[in-house]
């Protein structure tokens, strides 16, 4: 079953801006799905329409087979939304925010209290439960929105840049938490500007640019399209010249650092051997850029060229 199906979705705002010009998307139940695109591509507009915050101009959207036109309440019941911007009453205590949100979904106060405790503990906010939302840090506010989106236990969780402004430690703990939710059967749609986040978490990916879907595929097949990866190698000694390693494209960044382009047909072991023959050992290495980031930029550039 599709958790989400979007057909030819269009949105033109009253000021004439065409945010979506025909987006098509299918997300399977249980998937961890990345929705990527540059700023202004239409991701948040699409999410707004899916979650009933924005009126569409035309097209069809269904959530677990609930059409948002004919069964809007049924569709909304399935969705938990973590929007990009904070959208809670900053003067309300955070426990109350969650209990109220559960109430909006028709969940009684006793059950709502239990769920509130569960998710506030999970997201390390339980100690702050009586604080007003305005007293929380940026990262805590993000986690509060995640807890709020989960309190009615949605089948589809939409996360619009959930880790923006969150420090690395908390970001990684949030990744673990998202993986756990997904493993428990919740379908997740994630938009993010941290492409390593999408690469690390998601199974499928769609890229939207200028209001249209320019790609939808599995993460693996997308990354397989990457023909060249660039690595930075840190050497054990200073060298003066670029070593002769055959077909490898190598640049000397400084005496101790090399930059190497590795094609799909080449492999790192072979490169290490060749360097070793030149009496050069590699202490450590890193990807110059994230793989998905490289692809993402090249796809957007291709789109612009077209």
């Amino acid at each position, binding site marked *: 079953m599709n958790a989400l199906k979007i057909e030819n979705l269009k949105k033109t*705002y*009253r000021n004439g801006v065409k945010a979506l010009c025909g987006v098509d998307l299918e997300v399977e139940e249980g998937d961890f799905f990345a929705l990527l695109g540059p700023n202004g591509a239409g991701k948040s507009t699409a999410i*707004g329409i899916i*979650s*009933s*915050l*924005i*009126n569409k101009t035309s097209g069809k959207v269904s959530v677990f087979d609930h059409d948002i036109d004919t069964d*809007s*309440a*049924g569709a*909304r*019941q399935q*969705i938990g*939304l973590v*929007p990009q*911007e*904070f*959208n*809670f*009453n*900053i*003067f309300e205590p955070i426990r*109350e*925010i969650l209990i*109220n*949100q559960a*109430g*909006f*979904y*028709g*969940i*009684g*106060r006793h059950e709502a209290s239990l769920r509130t405790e569960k998710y506030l503990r999970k997201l390390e906010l339980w100690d702050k439960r009586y604080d007003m939302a305005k007293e929380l840090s940026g990262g805590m506010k993000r986690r509060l929105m995640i807890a*709020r989106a989960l309190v*009615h236990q949605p089948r589809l969780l939409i996360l619009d840049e959930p880790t923006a402004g969150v420090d690395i430690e908390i970001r990684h703990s949030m990744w673990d938490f998202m993986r756990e939710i997904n493993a428990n059967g919740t379908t997740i749609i994630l938009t993010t500007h941290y492409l390593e986040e999408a690469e690390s978490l998601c199974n499928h990916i769609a890229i939207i640019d200028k209001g249209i879907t320019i790609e939808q595929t599995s993460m693996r097949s997308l990354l397989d399209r990457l023909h060249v990866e660039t690595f930075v190698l840190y050497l054990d000694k200073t060298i003066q010249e670029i070593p002769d390693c055959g077909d490898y494209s190598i640049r000397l960044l400084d005496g101790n650092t090399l930059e190497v382009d590795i094609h799909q047909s080449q492999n790192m072991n072979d490169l290490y051997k060749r360097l070793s023959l030149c009496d050069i050992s590699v202490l450590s290495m890193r990807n110059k850029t994230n793989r998905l980031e490289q692809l993402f930029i090249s796809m957007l550039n291709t789109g612009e060229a077209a």
Partner: protein
Amino acid sequence: MNFRQQLIAFNTIMVREFLRFIRIWIQTIIPPVITVGLYFIIFGQLIGSQIGDIDGFRYMDYIVPGLILMSVITNSYANTVSSFFSAKFQRSIEEMIVAPIPNHIILAGYISGGVARGVIVGITVTAVSMFFSDFQIYSIPITLTVFILTSILFSLAGLINAVYAKSFDDISIIPTFVLTPLTYLGGIFYSIKMLPEFWQNVSLANPILYMINAFRYGLLGVSDIDTFTAIIIIIAFIVVLFAFTMRLLNKGVGIKP
């Protein structure tokens, strides 16, 4: 959502709205009490003592119903307009929009908040009026009916204002330039029989005149307007505004781009 779930959602909105104005009671409950207390002292005691009886009542007693209802009107209106607009402003309104709550439940929840504040302020002001006046309630059913209906009507009006408001300035324009003049000209401090005929007829176009007079009838048993007609007019206004507000919410005016 089944009926029970809708009831829970309604109760959630109602309790949240109630707690919102109770939390800031110094801003919401006390000011109208002080204002009306001043009206009683200045208009009732000081100036009123120079004015004779109206319809057989001391001037102080005569203005009590109007002053109580004025507090109900302004506070019911203020509650929904400020609550709904600040929810729009902070975008916390989205918490309800993404949930499967029917719009009539959202509307009923906000109205209940407005009515709750109107009732609490009304009761408080009535208690204060006891220090200045010793009136006996003429008809409890009529008094309560007009009290609640007026509160519902102005809660709806406040919500419509909030739907269209784009800034905090917009939520004070209607109360300042429409509501307050209509309330003062609605016969709080005088009987329209005291006006020249032309102005009596003009006054009949003021909907607040009907509410104040119906309420005065409930409290004192005197009115410039037929009470049954007044109640029908209030109900008609409620029906029209309810339908209009539902249409705004269904279309997402002011809340959905």
